[in-house]
């Protein structure tokens, strides 16, 4: 129906992933913040994971788009 859902999913997770990655980089080494998560920078890791997922979705959306309009 009208829109390809891969596009908004890809877009949203890319934005959120980027946001968390940057936040993770800036807070890297913040012992107090990451004491809860056992010293692991979960923001950075989750951010990177989401960014990859988002970009993959965007790539698939792009491929669908291309195959529709030869």
């Amino acid at each position, binding site marked *: 129906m009208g*829109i390809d*859902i891969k596009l908004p*999913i890809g877009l949203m997770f890319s934005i*959120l992933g980027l946001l968390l990655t940057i936040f993770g980089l800036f807070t890297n080494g913040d012992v107090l913040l990451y004491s809860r998560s056992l010293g692991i920078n979960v923001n950075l890791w*989750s951010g990177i994971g989401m960014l990859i997922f988002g970009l993959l979705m965007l790539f698939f959306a792009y491929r669908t788009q291309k195959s529709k309009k030869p």
Partner: protein
Amino acid sequence: MDTGFTLSWIDYTIMLVYFVFVLGIGWALKRYMKTANAFLEAGRAMPAWVAGLAFISTNLGALEVMGMTGSGAKYGMLTAHFYWVGAIPAMVFLALFMMPFYYGSKARSVPEYLKLRFDEKTRGLNAILFAVMTILASGISMYALAILMERVLGWNFHLSLILSAAIVLGYTYLGGLSSAIYNEVLQFFIIVIGLLPIVLLSLQDLGGWEGMKEQLAPIVSAKGYAPDTWTTTWKYTGSASANPLGVEWYGIFAGLGFVLSFGYWCTNFLIVQRAMSAKSPTAARNTPLIGALPKMFVPFLIIVPGIAALVLLNKPGSGFSLPEISPGHYNYDYTIIALLKQYLPAGVLGLGITALLASFMSGMAGNVSAFNTVWTYDIYQSYIRPVTGNKETDDKHYLFVGRMATIFGVIVSIAAAYLASLFGNIMDFLQTIFSMINAPLFAVIFLGMFWKRTTGHAAFSGLLAGFVIALLHHGLTAPLGAATLVKGGWICQVYTYPVEMAQNFWTAIFAWTTATIVTVLVSLLTKQKKSDGDLKGLVYSLTPKFKEGNVPWYSRSTTLAIVVLAIATILTILFW
């Protein structure tokens, strides 16, 4: 324990981005909503994977996530029965044997299938009950969300209620069922990604699965069970007293694996509607199967952290705690919240909270979008204003009615939410009633699909009889230590079940059995008014066998079904 959180700007930013997308999807779909069919049935154009993820996402509501994590702490891996034996066989059955009839009959809803297969009164009874129940369910979701926002985020209860209602109304009014479905897919991903850090961190903290098992043993032994009870599924179901569910293997098999799960997955329009929105008969058949794939792995996402919570709760110095209902009795519904608080720093915390809010809202949206379809097609179109024949004005009119039903549904949900805030037990009550309606409904639809002799009068009386017996059973029995009459025994308590779960299972089994017997007997005593021609496409023996067409063997529904069953079997054996 203090359940409050302080969220920082990054958490709020994540939440904001999510809700911009949710409303944005509705907005983008707005221009496609020109007919009632587009609005209420998503134009029957969904790819199988979208419908399949929406199918599973509808079931992965926030109450489910919170409840099942709590059950993970209370019952351990035994909770996985709700995901494996209690879901997979029913989903496969729905896909292979029932979807061809639901989809192929061109019925637009489950009540409409009842009308085509049986008669008007059977449809009417089901449609009205369904409409009332979905609106109540949506209201309860709304209430639970507002309570959560009040306790956890410190927001005003009334403001939270109105705000969440407005967002749900916003995107369902704009984009109808398509919007609800797309947002369910979005929610599926956000809930998986949002909860994954808790699973990984809690296991890391406790030394992995094996480490957790080791620390679990003394805690479980102290409760009077075998040390590995919390990490196995079938091993201790030989007798009801050896496992915390309080049910034997045959009770699980018949009650959960058959009656409850088939009743829920195969007849609940909220669920079936997702598969009916698929773009082709094959896609409709594949929808439940695609949904079954992630479904099998949900236990690792929500039950495992629950088990970890039990260990943390008993570990001195972990700093983990749950709110207490009374001294020594924890409120396990807060398990997931407490875990979020325990492990997640600002940033991913916002993601976790967003995941919970998202699943609350999509739960409401799902109910509202099922309600407006049943209202428009099965109540309004049948009893208030039938089709005139002029397609253009009809389409416009029913689209308008569908939209108004959406607004009406949300307003009544708000009222139901306030009702729920007055009567705390309404939630238990509703779940009980739901299981009383679903079990007989499954009996009737099953007989109708596979036995052409089943008559309209029989279906109607079967539904009623099953419901009455369920009520009677509930009125005559109660779980041990039940404090309120909502739990049962309101007529007179003649039997006491060890736990509530056992009572629920047996209520459903009694209801299903009665409905089956009554439907068969009345069918034999009454005349079949429908000719074989009328029943073509509605009954198994009168419908040409479903052909998969020219698809290669590896993308056929039957192949997918075998894969699903094989994985479920392997998981069951691994966690025996």
